[in-house]
């Protein structure tokens, strides 16, 4: 099966598993509310009785931005601590949620229910957390060390530049290369996770090593698929930004903006699920799931191909 068909299968899965998006949006939304809540109460206590607070409706204005910065200039350590702490917590939560996403994708025709989703979250959390720890090493080695080495020629090129164009092109290329490398590392560990679910294996290290073998001969196909989904994200971001420019600021504007923003965020969530769905399809096409996985669920894998 070619990447196009796999992509199509992935799309079909995400439509069938649309409830996943609802769960993810709800969880992220409420988690974000918790993160934002202290700021809301802070603004409310300081600004809700000030006429300046009404200026927020009129768009961004340096007078009130200046006031916020001045008023809260001592707060950055607290803010950084709060944002950093909650972000770490969310990172762990996202590892937990990935189990539910991939688990439900792998569950075939089975419906996504609250119970089954969180059941899979809990079921795969331990092994996914181990993958996360291994992936830290992977990111460090590839992006930290290899990425730095790779940056050297760009820096040298930029250092010898005779015009600004050289530095711009150099930095853009460097960024592009780093993004591509990042995409490879991310894709690699996605497949490790997907294979752990597909094989119903608990051996994260073994799955990681085995993944090298799996991707070695199929790398470009897998990467093309990954980048195709990535392109959807890029395009949707462009559409979102163009839309934002056109939306009204007055009247119902703020409500429309909020809806538009949430629509974009839903799109991002959908793209994330689509990514796992296509990866799962790709893996099962090229390496059929073991019987343990098949037996552990009531439904068959998505395709019988490769069995």
């Amino acid at each position, binding site marked *: 099966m070619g990447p196009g068909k796999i992509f199509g299968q992935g799309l079909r899965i995400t439509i069938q598993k649309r409830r996943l998006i609802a769960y993810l949006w709800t969880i992220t939304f409420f988690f974000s*509310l918790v993160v934002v809540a202290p700021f809301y109460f802070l603004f409310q206590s300081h600004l809700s009785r000030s006429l300046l607070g009404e200026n927020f409706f009129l768009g961004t204005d340096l007078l009130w931005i*200046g006031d916020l*910065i001045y008023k809260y200039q001592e707060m950055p350590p607290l803010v950084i601590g709060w944002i950093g702490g909650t972000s770490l917590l969310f990172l762990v939560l996202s590892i937990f949620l990935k189990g539910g996403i991939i688990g439900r994708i792998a569950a075939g025709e089975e419906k996504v229910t609250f119970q089954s989703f969180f059941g899979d979250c809990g079921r795969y959390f331990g092994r996914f957390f181990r993958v*996360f720890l291994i992936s830290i090493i992977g990111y460090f080695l590839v992006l930290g060390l290899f990425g730095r080495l790779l940056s050297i020629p760009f820096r040298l090129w930029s250092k010898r530049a005779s015009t*600004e164009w050289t*530095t*711009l092109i150099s930095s853009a290329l460097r960024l592009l290369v780093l993004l591509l490398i990042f995409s490879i590392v991310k894709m690699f560990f996605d497949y490790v996770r997907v294979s752990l679910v597909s094989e119903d294996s608990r051996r994260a290290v073994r799955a990681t090593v085995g993944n090298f073998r799996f991707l070695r001969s199929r790398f470009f196909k897998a990467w093309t698929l990954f980048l195709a989904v990535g392109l959807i994200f890029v395009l949707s971001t462009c559409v979102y930004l163009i839309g934002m420019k056109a939306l009204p600021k007055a009247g119902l504007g*703020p409500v429309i903006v909020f809806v538009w923003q949430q629509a974009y965020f839903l799109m991002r969530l959908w793209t994330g699920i689509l990514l796992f769905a296509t990866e799962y399809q790709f893996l099962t096409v090229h390496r059929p799931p073991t019987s343990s996985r098949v037996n552990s669920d009531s439904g068959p894998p998505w395709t019988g191909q490769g069995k």
Partner: protein
Amino acid sequence: MSNTRSGLFLALFIAPLLASPLDGAQEARKQEEGSPLRYVISVELDSRGRRLFGKEEISWRNPTNDEIPDMWFHLYWNAFKNERSAMLEEFRTEGALERAGDGEGGWGYIDINRIALADGTDLTPTLEFMIPDWPAHPHDQTVARVRFPIPVGPGEEVRLQIEFESKIPRTISRSGYYRDSYFIAQWFPKPGVYEEGKGWNCHQYHMNSEFFADFADFAVEITVPAAFVVGASGKQKSAVSSADGKMVTYRFEQTRIHDFAWTADPAYIKVERNFQAAREVSEQEITELSARLGVPMEELRLPDVKMILLIKPEHKAQIERHFRALRTAIKYYGLWYGPYPYETVTMVDPPFRTGSGGMEYPTLFTAGTGVLRDNKVLSPEGVIIHEFGHSYWYGLVANNEFEEAWLDEGINTYTTGRVQDKAYGRGMFSASFSGWPLTWLVNLPRYFDFELNRLAAIMAVELDPIRTPSWLFSSRMSYAANVYMRAATCLNSLERYLGEALMLRVMRTFQMRWRYRHPRTQDFIEVVNEISGQDMSWFFEQLFFNTHNFDYGVSRLRSEEKRTLYAGVFDINGKKQEVKRADIDKARRQGREKDNQETVYVTNVTVRRFGEALLGGEARVKLRVVFEDGTEELRDWDGQDRWKSFEFEKPVPAKFAQVDPDLVWLIDSNLSNNSLKAKARRSGVIQLASRLLFWVQNVLHTLSALG
């Protein structure tokens, strides 16, 4: 030294000797005519060795009643000589010392090989480096002096001949080279300013400081390889090729300027245009301004100016943007503050990586742009208007930038904002990612210059007084925020307080009265007082000489029904009588039912001075209270005490109270406490929080890619 250079030097030295029968170095008679300071300089660029070879003749007449035994010079390029210079030590203290001088022979310096009087008396043995500033940087070599055999008497003239050789720095600050591009500023030995009774005012080159020099007439010959395009201060008089055609000598002349800079780069595109006053300024504009300023129309007419642009090929598409901004600046600075008096102005797109962008020199300035610029972002426009504006504040009104930098940077930031706002309106925030403008994708906020200035100003208030000597600011950030933004914000507040027309008169009077002179802060205050007819000294005392935070606000707003009965025990006719809450409620109900009595509300507003800064003179805090029926009351407060309460009786409760409703005091550091509503309204805060929510959602989702 090449033959061409030797020939030039010979000509330079022989010519004055032939021209003047006086061979005495110090003329005993008084010189009544001509500029008291004249420079004749010839310099050759050795682009392979990154060196300058120069000969300089300085004619200086003692304009004071002092007997002057010596002369102090700036040797600015020694700031780039090593890490022990005052400038680089200050950079190191700031944690901002980059390894700019390392590699490629990047250090720069200037050596005086010989300094002599015109009669040949060699003063070189008396040459010594001086450390005038405190805290001392004992290894600094940016100031030197020579002693005269006999003191120069009042009105006497001295002529000095200097041979110097400089190593051009790989750019550290403002001057330098990158590949074949050169920007050459502060490059020749330049005397300080002699102040009567005080001596030479000649500060070292510091990290934060700019410059100070006397007005002079310049004649400068610059010899460069033929491939170079040259731009310089003043008017180009000639360009003569050497016999072999390899070198070209450019001659520039300009009277009544106090510095001279030049640039050379083979890649420059040179474009010339004329500012045609008759086309740029309408009769209606002149008529209206004449009425506002109370100045005859003839005084407002502007001369034509030749505009020269040296621009890099990669910025060629922005030529019209550059000229439009320059025309705008010449027009409005000319109309508002006085005509631009020089024939030319040269605008230089700074050579790549020479660190010379956004800097002013007499009749020449550097702008600064990038290859990718969004039209919505007012850059390079802002920098062009600002640097041209320095022709007025620094160029013509030549304050001491070492000691009172706000007088040019603060005033010019204020006037830049006025010109930019008038010509362009709000500009969009500039933001880029890896050099690529984000404004192509995102609508970033638009702002007026004064809004951005205020943001920096309120953050810097307690760091240092605005009128702090440049090198004594606590940090580079404090210097920039106070000298530029805070001073500009204070002047904007002054404009709002005095009114736009009166402020225009203040600024124009200050400019025209102090042209070609060196005013101090007190001189500016005196002009403000004179033109406004008020003593505004308190304003400067509070906001320029101190670190007082300006913050007035409303701390309490309360409306309640007026009562005729009060609870408690009262002595009535010798008896104790208790009034209960229930009695009060009953009386209130009965009053309403029987008499259809109109309820009266008592509104109490407390206005508070949260900051240390005090209003003075005739200035008052204006309080506006708006009531539910739309009526409003205005009150004034002198703002001297910490707080004052105001009481109002109205048939309706108050809706909100607001101090400074016209936003006169832009320098107020906390505008959100300037108003207080009776009831909280959360919708604005909810909107702000919802924006934040969206960003948090996206950041978290992006982060989850790692998990």
